[in-house]
């Protein structure tokens, strides 16, 4: 009985991180967008407009669900769900806090967590492809083709960027990776070389590459070519309405959270922050503090996402592909070679 209870509590906690922050972040996105454009943004629903996501939800639910006449009904309705599920699966292995007692604050403690997240992330593209294809709409099809080509291209560099952190920590277990970075100051964070000054350039480059690839993976501006309004109406979700559109939107935020969680865990020290968290303290209070640190890190990264989105114009498709294949891929390969040499020489 007790293991199940503990598991349930951990699952609820983990889901709450994601499902709570996801909708809440839509309001942050809209407010920040407004501020950058010199507007005020939605501030009418509830205090400071904080209940806007609820109003959005009511709107999404109360709209009619339209399935185009010639669309493949089953695949059309399956599309959003297939996009929605992977980020939630992926978040299972992200450690969202220090241990409480003997329990890791992590829904499932997989020894190959990094691989699991990577494989799960890449399945998200199927939902987009199915949705775009089943819509029986040229724009949707083009959008989904672009999305899949983009995601698959950037997955390579993303994987290599993740590999940098894995090489520094010599582990695929996210818990181990985080614990190695915890409690030893900023220098121990993988982005700053994971405790070895000689690895600092690799860490910085790896983190930079991973950050940009994550933008591309999540189809965020400046890489949101799969849904660019000017050319493709709405991209792969052109034909979607009502809650299935809402699910597409929400999953964008969920996968952002997953990406930021992964980046935080493998590069930015996860739930640890020098001076605030103590990795050897396994009390409930310390666990909550580490959880708060983790969430703060995720939220700040997502804020940077939003900030970038409303700063940079969209890339052209050839620029996107050039950047992915001709700049990021060689850069990551060189970075890996460099790190390997440094590691072998043992500097």
């Amino acid at each position: 009985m007790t293991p199940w209870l503990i598991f349930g509590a951990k699952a609820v906690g983990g889901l709450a991180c994601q499902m709570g922050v996801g909708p809440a972040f839509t309001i942050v996105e809209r407010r920040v967008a407004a501020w950058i454009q010199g507007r005020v943004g939605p501030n009418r629903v509830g205090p400071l407009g904080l209940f806007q996501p609820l109003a959005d939800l009511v709107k999404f639910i109360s709209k009619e669900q339209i399935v185009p006449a010639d669309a493949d009904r089953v695949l059309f309705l399956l599309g959003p769900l297939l996009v929605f599920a992977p980020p939630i699966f992926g978040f299972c292995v992200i450690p969202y806090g220090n241990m409480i007692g003997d329990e890791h604050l992590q829904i499932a403690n997989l020894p190959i967590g990094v691989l699991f997240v990577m494989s799960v992330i890449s399945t998200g593209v199927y939902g987009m492809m199915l949705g775009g294809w089943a819509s029986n709409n040229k724009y949707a099809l083009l959008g989904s083709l672009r999305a899949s080509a983009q995601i698959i291209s950037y997955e390579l560099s993303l994987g290599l960027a993740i590999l940098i952190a894995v090489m520094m920590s010599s582990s695929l277990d996210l818990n181990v990776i985080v614990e190695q970075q915890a409690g030893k100051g900023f220098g121990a964070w993988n982005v700053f070389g994971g405790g070895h000054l000689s690895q600092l350039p690799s860490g910085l480059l790896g983190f930079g590459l991973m950050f940009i690839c994550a933008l591309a993976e999540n189809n965020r501006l400046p890489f949101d070519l799969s849904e660019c309004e000017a050319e493709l109406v709405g991209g792969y979700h052109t034909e979607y309405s009502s809650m299935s559109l809402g699910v597409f939107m929400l999953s964008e935020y969920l996968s952002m959270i997953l990406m930021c969680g992964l980046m935080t865990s493998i590069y930015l020290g996860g739930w640890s922050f020098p001076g605030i968290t103590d990795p050897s303290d396994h009390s409930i209070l310390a666990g909550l503090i580490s959880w708060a640190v983790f969430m703060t890190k995720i939220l700040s990264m997502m804020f940077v996402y939003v900030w970038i989105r409303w700063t940079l114009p969209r890339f052209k498709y050839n620029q996107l592909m050039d950047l992915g294949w001709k700049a990021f891929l060689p850069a990551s390969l060189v970075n890996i070679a460099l790190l390997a040499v440094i590691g072998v020489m043992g500097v």
Partner: protein
Amino acid sequence: MANDDRVGSRDVEPKGFLAKTLMKLYVPSVLSGMKKTMEYMIRPKATLQYPEVKRVTRKGYRGEHRLKQDEQGRMKCVACFMCQTACPAECIEITAGPSPWPDRDKAPVQFRIDMMKCIYCGMCEEACPCDAIELTETYTQVSTSREEKIYDINRLLSN
């Protein structure tokens, strides 16, 4: 925009390998762009939350008209038609009648202004020899029909 704002624009020649590479990857441009948007983000906004916060009109704002009254509560207008003549939009319509007071000959029986035609130029106010009409600072006008938009003498007196 000042010239020093344009870090990363093409006219700045980067020096050295690292600077050139970063420039090629748009790093300086991206950073300066983000600095700019951050400035906008924290800048105070000009928007007023309208129904709760009303804009304070500057002095001399020209809004709805008002027909003025003197100390004894008599309307000042003597139905001289100066305002009707001066009005470029021809939206004033006065019907004159004999004055109930001995110190003047005429007084308006009806005084209509079509607020939909009015361009709020203030010529009527300037033309009036008796200082009897003026434009108030009320800029919100609510009505549910066209007829309501034609203000009659009572409406104008009560403004």
